[in-house]
């Protein structure tokens, strides 16, 4: 499609959204669960297409944003005590913990390596066999299989100095908690998480909560199409789970990826910033992979790390506040010098508002 066709399609979808929303009995409020959608929506200025009674709020699907401060402290304490190489995705590096961030730890001489793929951490551990290498395991269902596959490789190759510090999260438990909220009419469901778990896995939104959900791609037109479908389903009171990203997402997801995850991990309780401890919303290493568990083999005492009480990240992650309501936003808290993780992550809601404005 050329850009003229694209802008015509966008106008057609915006008109469909306006017409459907005009029939709604009250305000329409949807949540985009995934941080990559948050960024795409702001980058394309999509909110300017919405009628006044339609609001889109951000959800908990930003892995860095829901990771607790204490996890950063845990990693740094392991790095200090065992002279370990900490291996991480770039997103996490500037998140402030109570002992500073991974970036400040590195500037003070700590070994912190940023990688594109978790597989790179195998190479790092082979380069320095006497030093423990610890992969910081943050992410949702899209990322979890890549770490599980890395662990399988490490097991086959009998690598003894490779460890994972797990803080993985799965999307269904918090989504269930959010679906119970009366002020949310439905959900724009994540694209690449769904590629793994499948669009059928969200059926409970309809059967238990009578709310629609649409799996969406990441192009601006994909997102407008998904919103049109959400508004129509709300107005017609006929909630369903629709898959508007069929070119990538299958109804049963990717069973091969899920099998790899199941071999390596088992469900565990997990603590979410903003949502607290949610039963069975995280993943721990199975007994057969416990030799790679940094928590067990590189033990440290990690003190509690309370958040700055002025930071509204928790309320922002659950869609109850927008960043412009936070007193720190854009003043004490900026992407260069962030207070909370919602400003750190490139896909955090505060970072998106800061970069592109509220619209």
């Amino acid at each position, binding site marked *: 499609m050329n850009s003229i066709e694209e802008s015509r*399609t966008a106008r057609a979808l915006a008109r469909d959204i306006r017409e459907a929303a005009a029939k709604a009995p009250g305000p329409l409020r949807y949540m985009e669960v995934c941080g990559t959608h948050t960024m795409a929506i702001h980058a394309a200025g999509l909110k300017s297409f919405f009628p006044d009674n339609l609001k889109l709020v951000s959800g908990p699907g930003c892995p860095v944003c829901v990771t607790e401060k204490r996890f950063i402290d845990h990693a740094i304490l392991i790095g200090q005590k065992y002279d370990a190489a900490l291996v991480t995705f770039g997103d996490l590096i500037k998140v402030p913990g109570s002992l500073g961030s991974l970036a400040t730890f590195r500037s003070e001489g700590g070994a912190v390596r940023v990688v594109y793929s978790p597989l790179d951490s195998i190479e790092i551990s082979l380069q320095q066999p006497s030093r423990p290498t610890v992969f910081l395991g943050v992410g949702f269902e899209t990322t979890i299989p890549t770490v599980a596959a890395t662990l399988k490789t490490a097991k086959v190759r009998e690598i003894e100095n490779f460890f994972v510090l797990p803080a993985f999260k799965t999307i269904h438990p918090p989504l269930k908690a959010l679906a119970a909220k009366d002020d949310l009419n439905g959900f724009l469901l994540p694209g690449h998480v769904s590629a793994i778990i499948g669009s059928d896995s969200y059926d409970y939104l309809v059967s238990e909560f009578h709310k629609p959900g649409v799996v969406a791609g990441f192009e601006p037109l994909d997102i407008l199409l998904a919103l049109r479908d959400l508004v129509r389903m709300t107005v017609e009171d006929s909630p369903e789970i629709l898959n508007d990203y069929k*070119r990538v997402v299958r109804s049963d997801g*990717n069973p091969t990826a899920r099998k790899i995850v199941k071999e390596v991990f088992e469900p565990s309780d997990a603590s979410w910033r903003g949502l607290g401890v949610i039963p069975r919303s995280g993943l721990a290493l199975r007994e057969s992979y416990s030799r790679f568990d940094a928590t067990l083999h590189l033990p440290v005492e990690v003190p509690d790390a309370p958040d700055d009480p002025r930071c509204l990240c928790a309320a922002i992650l659950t869609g109850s506040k927008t960043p412009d309501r936070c007193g720190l936003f854009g003043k004490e808290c900026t992407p260069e010098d962030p207070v909370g993780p919602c400003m750190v992550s490139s896909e955090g809601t505060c970072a998106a508002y800061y970069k592109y404005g509220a619209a």
Partner: protein
Amino acid sequence: MCLAVPMQLVEITGEGTGKVNAGGVRADVSLMMIPHVKLGDYLIVHAGFGIEVLDAEEAGIRLDLFRELAEATAGEEEP
């Protein structure tokens, strides 16, 4: 963090490994999660792994739908 991009599989380099190409950039990719993949397929690549194969037929259906919508507004004034 769940960013993933379509890249074409241009070479199978070993058991469960290959090379992808997007706009002239070639990269190693693990095919462990997509055992049914074929040379020339477009993969959705995340953190060095192909996590899914792009369904060309579904991609075509989406484009047809968008073209149809575009035609519906073609006669109108640009705002």
